């Protein structure tokens, strides 16, 4: 080792250490002046603030940690909804972009160019403050299909009331496990004897039959609880029963999925275009049917291109869901880095926990993606 190699590294290290030292020294002094001691003990204290919308039971008597969980679950909820719809819209639009129909092609292109060139925050505001505010009041709402009520106070949908839900879930899990076994068996059989089993139709059949059996013999039954209008005061109405989706959630999910779908559409388009024409022709020339060409040749190669950037977009969507704070949807940032921080004043602890949550999420996904990329990479000889 010579001096030329060590010196720049030492210098960089020194600068970094100096900056961190400076910051932590100041933080110590500042906290001493304000009489705060650093620590995460406050997480178990009583939070004494309420959250409007929560998936788990929560009120002011619960701890700050519980508030953190509420925020985290709400973030996950909106991300999952957003990812679900963004994927559907994105795939449809991406395929529409490849259509040889001029009108469809143009419509998809206009959609993509329009929605991805407008800031996401603006779109969230648009849906929340402009579009959803034009909805009718609860008492004036016309029901959709008799059971859905889209009002200015939120979207009221009927809820299922289950008996023996656990047996139903077990039946679905059993169906999935059976399907996996069927797939393994069919692959082995094909490798040995060259006989193909219609795996797809068998899987669908299993997915329908096993849960159906649980209805017939397992004592599972579900009833539907339809929301009913209820008068609160002279002019205040609301709906009772069923599930209420607050307008914050709807507008956030809508904006996130419409915005992210444009990027997913571009990924899908690039992926399908990335499979060369020769591949399809070669596959057809060895006697594969068009369905087999799509399933065995085109899709595996296209997915290899599509999946990594799409995962990135999912990650972006999850991170973008933190914009919820702007319209008061109680997500992690609003509940924890907003309300809890205001109450406790523990800026360093709370911001660091919030950042670590997002950081661990994205790092774990990127580690998974690296592993996945390595696994599916074409191994050239």
């Amino acid at each position: 080792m010579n001096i030329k190699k060590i010196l720049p590294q030492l210098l960089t290290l020194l600068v970094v250490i100096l900056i961190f030292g400076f910051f932590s020294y100041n933080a110590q002094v500042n906290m001493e002046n304000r009489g705060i001691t650093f620590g995460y003990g406050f997480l178990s204290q009583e939070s004494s603030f309420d959250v409007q919308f929560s998936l788990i039971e929560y009120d002011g008597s619960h701890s700050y940690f519980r508030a953190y969980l509420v925020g985290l679950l709400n973030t996950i909820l909106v991300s999952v909804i957003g990812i679900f719809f963004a994927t559907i819209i994105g795939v449809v639009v991406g395929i529409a972009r490849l259509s040889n129909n001029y009108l469809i092609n143009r419509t998809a292109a206009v959609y993509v160019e329009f929605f991805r060139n407008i800031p996401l925050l603006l779109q969230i505001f648009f849906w929340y403050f402009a579009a959803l505010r034009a909805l009718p009041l609860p008492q004036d709402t016309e029901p959709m299909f008799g059971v859905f009520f889209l009002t200015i106070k939120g979207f009221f949908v009927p809820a299922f009331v289950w008996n023996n839900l656990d047996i139903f879930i077990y039946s679905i899990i059993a169906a999935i496990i059976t399907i996996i076994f069927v797939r393994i068996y069919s692959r082995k059989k094909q490798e040995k004897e060259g006989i193909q089993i219609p795996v797809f139709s068998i899987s669908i059949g299993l997915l329908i039959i096993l849960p159906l059996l649980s209805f017939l013999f397992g004592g599972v039954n579900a009833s539907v609880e339809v929301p009913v209008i209820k008068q609160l005061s002279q002019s205040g109405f609301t709906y009772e029963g069923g599930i209420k989706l607050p307008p914050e959630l709807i507008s956030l999910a809508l904006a996130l999925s419409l915005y992210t779908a444009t990027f997913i559409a571009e990924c899908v388009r690039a992926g399908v275009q990335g499979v060369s024409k020769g591949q399809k022709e070669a596959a057809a020339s060895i006697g594969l049917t068009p369905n087999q060409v799509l399933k065995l040749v085109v899709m595996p190669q296209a997915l290899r291109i599509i999946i990594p950037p799409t995962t990135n977009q999912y990650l972006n969507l999850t991170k973008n869901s933190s914009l919820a704070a702007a319209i008061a949807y109680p997500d992690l940032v609003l509940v924890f880095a907003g309300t809890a921080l205001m109450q406790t004043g523990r800026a360093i602890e709370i911001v660091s926990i919030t950042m670590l949550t997002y950081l661990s999420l994205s790092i774990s996904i990127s580690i998974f993606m690296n592993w996945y990329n390595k696994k599916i990479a074409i191994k050239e000889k």
Partner: protein
Amino acid sequence: MNKLNFLQPDKNNLNTYLYTGVILVAFSIFIVFLNSFFNKDIVSFLPGPISFFLPLILGFIGLHLIRIDYSGYKFLESINKNINTNNFNAFLSLLIVFVVIKSLPPLLSWFIIDANIAGDSKDVCTGSGACWTYIKIWFNRFMYGMYPNPEQWRINLSFIALAFLGTIGFFATEKFKKYLTLYYVVVYPLIAFFFIFFFISGGPIFFDFSYGIIAAVISIIIGFFIPSKFKMYYFIIVPITLYILLKYVFFYEELIELGKLEALEWVETGAWGGLSLTFIVSFFCLIFCFPIGLFLSLGRRSDFPIIKYISIGMIEFWRGVPLITVLFMSSVMFPMFLPEDMFIDKLVRVIIAISLFEAAYVAEVIRGGLQALPRGQYDAAKSLGMGYWKMHILVILPQALKLVIPGIANTFLALVKDTPLIFVVGLLEIVGMLNLAKTNPEWLGFAMEGYVFASVLFFIICYAMSKYSYNLEQKYKTER
């Protein structure tokens, strides 16, 4: 006369099929047109569902009839090829045409026919359409935020001057072309600083920065005569010394006297806002995030383990967290890290935060370009006896940056679209101003107009940027 087979139209009875098909399609479009523009349903005598689907059915049959190969008519062939290849495509095309016709009248009436723009108070907005009066009255605020009205020429002048200076590169003659990079990387940002802090901010801050500029200019001029061996050290030491000398030794007395003169009224950054703030924030973040990202990407590919892991840590940290938490950090957590008497302006903190955040993304994009270069380029440069910096500046970076123009443009677009987030620290650029105007008791209920206006503005800016980057990409495309 051949037999007519309506299930399989062919060329033999071309005219029969063609006339029937065209009449059917035209009639179906006519029905929808009347329905949407004149609110007249001429097929209302039919039962409900049939009259609703009739245009679709008629048009579908019509398109089926005109789907004839080798008809000899150019127009027909291009229609068949583009929107009418098979039944499914025909159906979708009809659906799109009908939806467009159906949605035109409400859109037109909202945007233009029933909209109001005259007058200067809310009372003129009685129609069911948009109230553009609201935009007209608030236009000034949307552009300049809370910046005092009589001082707004300062913003205009700065932007016009900067735009003009930014285009100098297009007019430069061959002789000066080699100085362009220096100009855009060093001189132009400095001039921009000068304008923003002298004209837009005003007040005594100007003197601080003018010293910086004087120091920089003097040292650059002298720098030409310094042997290249010492240039590195020279450019680190001399400008800082000059600045300190100017500030504390030579001009100290004058500063106080001139400060009393108060040439321009000082406008604090909290009053800046609107679209101009969007531009200022994006502009500075753009300038800063590129070099930081460049160094991070070089650091990540460095052979020195410590530098490599510090760069990786930086990049992964900033990429892993949402921007809003970074801004939260800069507003509530960062002041805790500073000495109590030290205060950094809100706008500066925001610019630093966004720059670091975007720099991580720029770094990853540039890394992609660096990785795409074949090893031979490095080996060739090394075999010519080039050192690390010479190799990167002359051989590697010009090629790598060319490759990543689209990626960098995307990152810059993301940056511009991220600027509205600065509402977290209380700075109101255009979206923030919209939200402020929306809650004004005299102008309640015009949220839609505001958001549509801002959307159009952002769309124009971002779309122009993406098209420009596409042109740039085409211009610098080299065959490899």
